[in-house]
């Protein structure tokens, strides 16, 4: 039965909650800075127009913040209930960043948020401006810690596994914080928020122009956010390039799924656009190899020769492993220390993983029996194979392949929309400079339509990041099947239904209030 398993239900619940939470977060991340920039214009110029403009966007910020705040806490509820093995296994690696995030969110955001909203006539202009900037910086710092924790799941570093407690303990905080995956992820994610907020501001402003209202407000809002959005988008593209290099090194299976790359080659092309052949199912690699081999990967594709090799290694002749290569092993890769090694086949990793899991069981047995010698032997068995620990739960090699169509299409939707937004910002700035935006109704409609598109783009990015790394909750160390708790699937179904009702009601409330505020306009 579809979604019959507890792991699938828990994944669905977590994915829906995270995606819902992510509807609010990027707008908060970006709009905070747009407001701060507008208020800076006000403080520097003394022009009341900028104060009125700032206050309007601050209202949109507040509504979004109020509806979105704390929806992320439900994810933490799920960690404890649905993913208790995972929560225990990650130990303080996850706990420390989340605790810092909680403190930052509470003190920085809550304190300065109040000054930002209540303090217009109570504190000096400069003190108010500083508060607005600190709210913007605070929300971004909150995001940093969550993203550091997420990056650790994609590339676990800076920890040591304690077999007495079955927990990973942080031994190098800086390695966790400054891992290349974390840095790229943070920059890529927050700049995504800046681009999203810029498009939302442009789209709402376009609505005013379409209704021939608030022309000065709308045009200056468009200009400010288009500049902010374009600069952010360039950084976003740069960090996306960095992310692809990291994915190629640390999660080659994810990259193969993103590109629909079944068989690697020297000088691998990059797919610009394509339609995957549904007949090319990875299940057939083991079940029906003749059918698998006879099917092409794509029904249609546009590709750039050697593009993927160039992207991930800056060389046109680099070998990029495909799904089959990763299953079979034998290609050269760089390990965590940058040393070239030959990739083992997945079956070998599964065998080593089983030894690691067995080592943990033997260690625990010896520990409880007070058998020091047995403990030592089991510890060696566990730690010698710990890099493959998660493979001990994999039943067949093809289980390590993520959902290829979902990852591929999400990735290409994200890229295509990213290119569209680049053109959109350039056209916006050109039209604004020529003062012709109001005359082109097609552009105003396009700006409004771009609002849902930017949300689709943003969500697609997370689908690539999270679906692409399946089956792992922690890369190579813990698959979802071993991470999930032994709870009743019926309870998960009930909470999914409850979430659906609660979240839909909240979303309707938010949209209702936002539309009301927009309709009233900045002059209200």
């Amino acid at each position, binding site marked *: 039965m579809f979604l019959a398993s507890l792991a699938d239900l828990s994944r669905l619940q977590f994915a829906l909650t995270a995606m819902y939470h992510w509807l609010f977060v990027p707008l908060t991340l970006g709009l905070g800075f747009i407001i701060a920039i507008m208020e800076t214009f006000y403080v520097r110029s003394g022009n009341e127009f900028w104060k009125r403009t700032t206050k309007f966007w601050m209202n949109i910020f507040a509504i979004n913040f109020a509806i979105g705040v704390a929806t992320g806490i439900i994810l933490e509820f799920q960690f404890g209930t649905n993913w208790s*093995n995972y929560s*225990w296994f990650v130990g303080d690696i996850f706990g420390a960043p989340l605790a810092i995030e909680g403190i930052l969110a509470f003190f920085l955001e809550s304190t300065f948020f*109040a000054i930002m909203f209540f*303090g217009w006539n109570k504190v000096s202009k400069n003190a108010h401006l500083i508060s607005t900037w600190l709210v913007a910086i605070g929300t971004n710092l909150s995001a940093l810690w969550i993203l550091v924790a997420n990056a650790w799941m994609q590339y676990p570093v800076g920890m040591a596994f304690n077999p007495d407690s079955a927990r990973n303990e942080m031994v190098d905080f800086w390695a966790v914080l400054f891992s290349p995956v974390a840095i790229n992820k943070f920059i890529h994610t927050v700049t995504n928020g800046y681009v999203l907020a810029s498009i939302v501001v442009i789209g709402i402003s376009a609505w005013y122009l379409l209704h021939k209202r608030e022309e000065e407000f709308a045009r200056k809002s468009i200009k400010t956010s288009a500049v902010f959005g374009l600069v952010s988008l360039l950084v976003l593209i740069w960090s996306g390039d960095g992310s692809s290099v990291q994915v190629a090194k640390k999660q080659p299976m994810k990259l193969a799924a993103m590109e629909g790359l079944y068989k690697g080659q020297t000088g691998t092309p990059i797919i610009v656009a394509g339609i995957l052949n549904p007949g090319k199912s990875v299940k057939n690699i083991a079940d029906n190899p003749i059918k698998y081999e006879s099917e092409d990967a794509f029904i249609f594709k546009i590709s750039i020769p050697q593009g993927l090799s160039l992207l991930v290694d800056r060389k046109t002749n680099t070998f990029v492993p495909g799904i089959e290569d990763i299953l079979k092993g034998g290609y050269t890769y760089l390990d965590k220390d940058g040393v070239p090694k030959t990739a083992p086949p997945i079956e070998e990793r599964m065998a080593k993983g089983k030894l690691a899991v067995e080592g943990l069981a033997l260690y625990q047995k010896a520990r409880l029996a007070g058998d020091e010698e047995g403990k030592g032997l089991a510890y060696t068995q566990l730690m010698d194979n710990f890099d493959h620990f998660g493979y001990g*739960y994999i039943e067949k090699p093809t289980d390590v392949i993520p959902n290829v169509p979902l990852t591929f299409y999400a990735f290409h939707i994200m890229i295509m929309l990213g290119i569209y937004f680049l053109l959109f910002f350039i056209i916006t700035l050109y039209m604004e400079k020529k003062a012709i935006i109001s005359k082109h109704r097609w552009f105003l409609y396009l700006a409004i339509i771009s609002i849902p598109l930017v949300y689709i783009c943003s969500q697609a990015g997370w689908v690539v990041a999270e679906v692409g790394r399946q089956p792992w909750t922690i890369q190579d160390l813990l698959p979802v099947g071993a991470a999930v708790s032994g709870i009743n699937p019926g309870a998960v179904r009930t909470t999914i239904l409850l979430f659906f009702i609660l979240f839909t009601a909240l979303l309707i409330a938010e949209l209702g209030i936002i539309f009301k505020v927009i309709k009233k306009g900045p002059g209200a």
Partner: protein
Amino acid sequence: MNSNIIKRIWLFYYDGFRGMTLGKTLWIIIVIKLFIMFFVLKLFFFRGELSSYQNDDEKSRHVIENLTTSKPNT
């Protein structure tokens, strides 16, 4: 001096909340949301699987048991 600062902070928040127009609706939404989250979902549906164990050692044993004997659900 200290009581004066506390009074000023209190008045800052009090006046701020009293002067809200849009904010009142938002606060009602926030309060209802937090009530549902913490007093309905957390209490009745998300108790935490390991919360029934007395200490970290018991929790460790339970997780190790799960990790070493349960059949994975991939």
